[in-house]
């Protein structure tokens, strides 16, 4: 599924359509989304470097991790960063997001000892001004892709950081502008969903076309942490998790996919979900006043019911015709007629079903209640 997502992002969007947008989210119970983000970044880098992708480069907005981290990460994956800055540009919003450091340097209070990173294109000093950020992203992207039809990928490390500084509506506006820009091929961002109100998370999910969430595999039995079993479960959740993807398809259907992910020293690995975890699909059939579903026991019982026209042949005494039991007989006769249409038989329908057998008596007198 992770591969599927990366391929979808690689293929980008069609002309005139909004670019596909992926939101990667997690919670504190299983905080592995940054590994997923890195994985997607490295996959897209490999697609771009091998010319298999619609886009020509990546613009990375680094808010929660420094550009140096990315430089080392990409180097460890084997991508050439130093010599060819023509495929990735990093906007450094991590070192000095609000411009405080540069003010202090200007006033001479501190010395600027930061060596900087070779991968950094520009330093953003005011994260609050999202219009400015938008234009710097587009500018960097145009440098990568050329002014014409070339397209680029935009990656935002931690929209959660952005939401610390600005409002949800301005972040949503930024994302929507990026998605609708002609030269943006695809877009993905990271969000820690438990840091924000549900409305903020819902608004950002609304802006996306694919949602990948990292959930804990095993939840602790109760809220208490002191229990040693719970501790080991929690530790497990820092290494393994469930990877759930919801994709909004073009025809309006929603596709859900599940995988297991596991993080170790070598990186992140995805594996198909083991059969223990059953997915309980939410029932979409509206609730009605009567129960339309049958339970297991009811299904079994229904299978066991012998229908009237089934048991007339198995040796039991045939039922003597009584005016009121005509229904059973009628069914039997019709059923037999259908079966034996090949042979010559006299087909006789009783028409005495219509007449009342004892018209002056009340048929209900026979009921013994």
């Amino acid at each position, binding site marked *: 599924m992770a591969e599927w997502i990366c391929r979808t992002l690689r293929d980008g969007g069609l002309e005139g359509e909004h670019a596909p947008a992926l939101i990667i989210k997690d919670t504190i119970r299983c905080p592995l989304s940054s590994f997923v983000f890195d994985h997607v970044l490295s996959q897209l880098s490999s697609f771009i470097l091998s010319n298999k992708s619609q886009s020509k480069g990546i613009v990375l907005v680094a808010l929660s991790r420094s550009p140096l981290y990315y430089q080392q990460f990409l180097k460890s994956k084997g991508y050439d960063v130093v010599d060819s800055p023509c495929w990735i540009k990093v906007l450094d919003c991590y070192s000095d997001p609000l411009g405080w450091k540069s003010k202090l340097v200007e006033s001479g209070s501190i010395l600027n000892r930061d060596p900087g990173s070779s991968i950094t294109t520009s330093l953003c000093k005011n994260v609050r001004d999202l219009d400015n950020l938008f234009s710097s992203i587009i500018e960097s992207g145009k440098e990568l892709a050329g002014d014409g039809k070339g397209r680029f990928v935009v990656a935002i490390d931690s929209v959660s950081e952005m939401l610390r500084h600005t409002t949800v*509506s301005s972040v949503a506006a930024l994302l929507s502008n990026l998605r*609708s820009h002609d030269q943006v091929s695809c877009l993905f961002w990271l969000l820690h969903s438990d840091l924000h109100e549900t409305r903020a998370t819902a608004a950002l999910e609304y*802006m996306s076309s694919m949602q990948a969430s990292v959930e804990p595999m095993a939840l602790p039995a109760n809220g208490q942490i002191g229990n040693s079993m719970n501790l080991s479960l929690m530790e497990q959740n820092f290494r393994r998790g469930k990877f759930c993807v919801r994709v*909004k398809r073009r*025809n*309006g259907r*929603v596709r859900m996919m599940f995988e297991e992910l596991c993080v170790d020293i070598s990186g992140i690995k995805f594996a198909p979900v083991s059969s223990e975890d059953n997915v309980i699909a939410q029932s*979409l059939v509206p609730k009605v006043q009567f129960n339309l579903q049958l339970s297991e026991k009811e299904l079994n019982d229904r299978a066991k019911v012998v229908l009237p026209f089934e048991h007339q042949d198995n040796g039991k005494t045939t039922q003597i015709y009584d005016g009121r039991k005509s229904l059973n007989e009628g069914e039997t006769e019709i059923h037999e007629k259908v079966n034996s249409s090949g042979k010559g038989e006299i087909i006789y329908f009783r028409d005495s079903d219509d007449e009342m057998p004892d018209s002056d008596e009340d048929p209900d007198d026979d009921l013994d209640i």
Partner: protein
Amino acid sequence: MFDEMRIVKIYIHMAAIRPRSSSFSRSTSVASNAVPGLKHGPNGTMFLSSGIQDLDKILGGGFTLGSLVMVMEDPEAPHHMLLLRNFMSQGLVHHQPLIYASPAKDPRGFLGTLPSVMVSKDDKSRAHESEQEKGLRIAWQYKKYFGEQNSDSQRDGKSEYCCDFDLRKPLERHFFTGKHIDCITLKDSADLTTFHDRCSSFLSQTPRTDGNVIGGRIAIQSLCSPQCEFSDKEWDMLSFVRSLKSLVRLSNSVAIITFPPSLVSPAFSKRLQHLADTLVSVKAIPDEDKELAKLLTGYQDMVGLLSMHKVARINTQVLNVSSDLTSSLK
């Protein structure tokens, strides 16, 4: 775009509709219906078409003039756009004035995705059918049941009340000429006052007391979309909708507003739902869901679910259609 879909058809799964016609009926004959886009409804109301025949049937004829329709979107599916497209196309085909507002930067671009009227190939067969019917001698008591069918089968292209739309083809350019189409973007507005003024001037063009009824259409897409600055000012949005409702009630227009209920607080969402005269919600269905495939026939063709929660009750206490239906969109 919807490659697989041509016409939007709505299949009713739950109850069958049986419009209960009242024993009292007005003496207005069908012939007096000179305006093609409008239809007389019960209780002195007039209908205009939603653009989807099956939806008109569920609503009992169409959208009542003077009503406010709200569509609850599902953030995971674009079905509300389908409803809007058909609504707007139908209005343009009937030359009814239209205002369209959306949070996109360039809402005029959406007009390019409106579907065109489907050219029906079976006009000939239908003419043949009506001839055959004349050969039948229908007893006079039963002629009243046939009256409805005959009016439906009067296909004449543009004078049809509700057209079938072909989603694969864009609407012809000549429908877009004329000053009666207005597209507004809600994106950069800090609040809704300017838009409110535009709407009120638009609605004053089609007042209720006017003898010459045309029928206007207002389509607002994704009102509470997070990109707009006013999206966190819930009370402002609520008062806008309320005042729009009162303006629409005094005019001969229909306003349709779509909003995503999950993006606003639950209390606010409830308030918006109560404000609506007609309330519809659309929902996505999971893809490749075996449980659902077993439960619903025609699952392969379905793209979504449409639920009717409320139908407009103007000048009456009793509805002649049943509410609370869930149907599927194909």
